[in-house]
């Protein structure tokens, strides 16, 4: 059961990390949007 929990926590952490970086990148792109 320990391995299952470890795998799930690792996977969710990876997903959350990339969701966060994706949000950061999109936000910075919006701030640099053309014509602003």
């Amino acid at each position: 059961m320990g391995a299952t929990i470890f795998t799930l926590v690792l996977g969710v952490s990876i997903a959350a990390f990339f969701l966060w970086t994706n949000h950061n990148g999109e936000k910075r792109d919006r701030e640099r949007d053309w014509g602003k």
Partner: protein
Amino acid sequence: MKLAKVKVEYTGGTTITERVSLDPATGQVTLPPRLLALLKAMDETECSPAFGLEYGGMVLPVAVSEGTYKVSIPTEPESGIGHILNAIVYPSKDQRQQNGRYLHTLSAASIGGAVGYAHAAPTLDFQTLVGAVGLAGLGVLLWYVGFRAMKGE
């Protein structure tokens, strides 16, 4: 002075791409007379355009004030590690695309792992079920996050 590429996009669909001179120290943009004449002619029939300058892989908005064109050059972190961390935390559109591909690879591995895990177990007990469902759920989550990272404009 450096050469830089600019793109002027009008609401009507007309797009002008041109090279201009850029002073990286002041952000001053010098447009060639041909482009100035084109912009003047377009102003008579079009709304104000989206005016962007490509610099260091970024598109910077060009501000127009009293006949002069300027861009605000962002300050990049000086140290090597800072530059790397900046690229990871603030990925560009292409980097987000690659992150999405990586997440889809992990998603496929998770779903494949769930199937293998379930088939390798001698009996379908509670622990096996939790492991397989967890891996499958993780596969769906990773697929969704990768899908979001790959979205276009």
